[in-house]
């Protein structure tokens, strides 16, 4: 059962409706290119073969705002506050129309990032930390948050292998360096600082993302197992 505990104001009034959420909310967090989706890709069949129904969700996949957000990011007029709120719209739409209904129906919800990456990005882009935290205060506390931790030196070869540096993942909207590589290094270093600061505040379970994929997955499974219903 996912408890009705929130980081801030329960703006969606789930408590008022005395919602019962028999599912589980499991979050994988970590920066760009750290291997979150690979891990999720391995977790899903494992859970399903054990008989658990799984729903997965990730950023910019909301029906409401996903397309609009991608289009807005493709242009060059998107300001940082607007970008943050566009992401918040996308998150809340997924939260209300995917995550909550799935938890209500007893699914295991695996989410590729939650509010934490969104807050880290916002703060790095100059958002007032109190402001962004209050917006995402409507989010449920997950049953577990796994933070895939990586140092910048380990991150670079992974990202190169995956196809190189992306404009947004390099924070090029903030011009943090002379080129994509420099900007990527500076931007990711700032993000990693934010994740680090959030680790104890939000109770992240830290996992070493530089481990081989299979080994890291074993660690995740071991930690997820006791969280599962009748597990």
């Amino acid at each position, binding site marked *: 059962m996912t408890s009705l505990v929130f980081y801030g104001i329960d703006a969606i009034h789930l408590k008022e409706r005395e919602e019962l959420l028999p599912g589980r909310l499991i979050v994988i967090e970590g920066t760009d290119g750290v291997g979150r989706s690979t891990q999720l890709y391995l977790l899903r069949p494992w859970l399903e073969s054990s008989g658990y129904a799984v729903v997965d969700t990730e950023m910019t996949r909301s029906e409401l705002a996903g397309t609009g957000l991608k289009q807005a990011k493709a242009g060059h007029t998107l300001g940082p506050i*607007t970008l943050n709120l*566009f992401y918040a719209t996308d998150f809340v739409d997924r939260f209300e129309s995917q995550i909550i209904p799935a938890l209500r129906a007893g699914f295991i919800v695996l989410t590729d990032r939650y509010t934490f990456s969104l807050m880290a990005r916002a703060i790095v882009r100059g958002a007032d930390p109190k402001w962004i935290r209050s917006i995402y*205060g409507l989010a449920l506390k997950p049953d577990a948050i796994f933070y895939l931790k990586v140092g910048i030196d380990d991150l670079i070869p992974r990202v190169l292998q995956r196809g190189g540096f992306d404009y947004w993942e390099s924070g090029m909207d903030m011009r943090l360096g002379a080129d994509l590589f420099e900007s990527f290094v500076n931007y990711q270093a700032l993000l990693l600082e934010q994740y680090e600061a959030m680790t104890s505040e939000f109770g992240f379970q830290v996992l070493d993302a530089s481990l081989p994929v299979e080994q890291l997955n074993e660690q995740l499974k071991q930690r997820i197992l006791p969280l599962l219903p009748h597990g």
Partner: protein
Amino acid sequence: METYGSHEYPGRLFVVEGVDGSGKSTQIALLRQWLISEGYTVFFSEWNSSPLVKKTTSKGKKKQLLTPTSFSLIHATDFADRTEHDIIPPLKAGAIVLADRYIYTAFARDVARNVDRQWVRELYQFAVKPTVAFYYRVPLEVSLSRILTGRTEIKYYEAGMDLGLSSEPQESFKLFQQRIVREYESMVDEFGLTVMDATLPIPEQQRRMRKIIRPYLLGVRRTRASAKEAAWAGLAREMRPSQADGLERSAR
């Protein structure tokens, strides 16, 4: 990021608020004409007008995807884009910005939709505090008859149909407007809104509005002389220097 009340810009921001049918748009249009004729640089910004967010909002409305919270957020996103493009840059440049509806519209509508009052106030912390925020107060019967006469259809979200107050759009609209008015009234003290009597004749309302605004225009840069001053100056040039000097001074 600067938050509500902490921005300091050389420009001025005047906003009008009120329910549909309160006549606020007429008033701000007249104010704009006057400010332009006085030689000021004026920017005008309307609610729900960001080109970046437009498609998402209309998709949400058309497909009825919006919950009160996502409705609130999509409008906040729209407003953020306006703030970053149409409001802050002109204010920094020392211009006068006029806004037809501002954050108080969101507070009234969202809370009428049962969004948490405190949460939505936090959401709009990035907004610039207006120099003056006018609230056009009008009895509900008056605004309803102005809106509903000649209208055959009220849109789903506009009527607050998503709230399930009534299955009949006109009835739902009335109940929804009632809630909105209640929220506006509670914000008068909370945000120091300047209340205007929207039942007065249009020219009288405008006269009062200009009188309230005039003291705030001191020190705002004009890009041209006002129309009146230009006329006086033209007249002055045809006269003897000593007389002309006196005339120009009296025109200022």
